[in-house]
């Protein structure tokens, strides 16, 4: 069974509250800004070439039953 909209709203609300509370008492960052040079390297991007990854994602979505949770939004189509 799927999650009802009411339960979803509660879950989202709880997540937002947690995020808000976390923002009020943020811990000291354990990876300092000067230690993050590797994350500035393009090879560490989760989506280095969006035009390519969006296309490949579209290819899979039109041939598989699963979809979603890819971190980006694709448009609808009647592509089967």
């Amino acid at each position, binding site marked *: 069974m799927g999650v009802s909209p009411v339960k979803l709203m509660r879950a989202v609300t709880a997540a937002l509250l947690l995020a808000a509370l976390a923002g009020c008492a943020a811990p000291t960052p354990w990876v300092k800004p000067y230690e993050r040079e590797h994350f500035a390297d393009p090879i560490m991007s989760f989506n280095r*070439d969006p035009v390519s990854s969006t296309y490949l994602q579209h290819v899979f979505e039109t041939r598989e039953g699963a979809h979603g949770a890819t971190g980006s939004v694709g448009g*609808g189509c009647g592509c089967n």
Partner: protein
Amino acid sequence: MQLTREARCAHTRGSAGLSPFTRTLLTLCLIAAPALAGVLPEDRADVLWHSYNGGDITIQGPSVLVRKKVGDNLSLSASYYEDMISSASIDVKLSASPYHETRKQESVGADYLHGKSTYSAGFITSKEPDYKANTSYFSVSQDMFGDLTTLTLGYRRGWDQVFRDIKTPQGVLENDPTFHQRADHRGYSLSLTQILTRNAILGFNYELLTDQGYLANPYREIRFLSPGQGRGFMLAEQVYPNTRTSNAASVQLKYYLPYRAALTGQYRFFHDTWGVLAHTVELDYTHPVWKHWIFDGSLRYYRQSAADFYSDLFPRANYQNFMGRDRELAAFHSYTLGAGASYQFAVPGVRWISKSSANVRVDHLMVDYSDFRNALLAGSYGAGNEPLYRLNANIFQVFVSIWF
């Protein structure tokens, strides 16, 4: 505009008449307004040509994506995508006629940066002769914990119109005036990226999707046993449920290797109210070599169970309330092997281009169906005893990117 702490409190008190959800959202938006700034995506343009060839289907076309900052806080994007389809697939051969058609998709989007929050919104429209789809989306991202963590909440809504083409006596395809259906889609997403160490970053995505309306493919049909008649089976219209709720969750771990290379592991879980249970596992490796080249290699494994109302061959007509034979809802597993190369180069004499690259990527998709048979061979093997269908496809992309 930056609100003072007192103004934020007063604003929050003034919203006492709102629902708990709205109040919480307002609270987050107001708290998420510190002085330090986040980062907008880079200005870049990409022009891509794609080609898919497999299962007697050829799909190719261009794709263009442009993103440009306007001032310090706003980034705009626009894209154009086209599929030129030529299909004589196994489904088409069984119950329809080979066809050619073009799908065009356009999108616009905007990202607005305010402190450590990024507000994104966009609109996507897709047009085919027999399918029109509009999608809008909105999301809020917040950097926190010294920018080690980014939390994103998103919502998307889609409105589709489904038509069915019929052939006129003159041989021209046109929309069947008696068939016009609609489908609505909603998606609620939560994403989190977390820097774990100076070499590792974690991504998590969850999405709840609801679909309502006409969710079947109007051209495909079920088949049911009909001994002694024709090929031993007959065809009938698919009957799908009008609602579908799906849950998808994925996790990605990316690791920076000591010799400047990146290794990514991904897993996605999917389950829906139609009974489809799917797992996706992917490994990617990125390796820069020499001065200007970056090579990528990937292996993706996908496995799904069949929908509850799917059957390759029903025992008889009207066997159950819902009946489908779309192979996207069959049980199958697939492997995709991919490789890509990117060459970074400078464009001499063009100062406004800061960086550019020429890229090529090839993927080979191999699908093995567990309960979808090649019904075209029923005459030789008998209905229900045909060989299981296998799909092999080559996916090719070539694109040029510039940063400015």
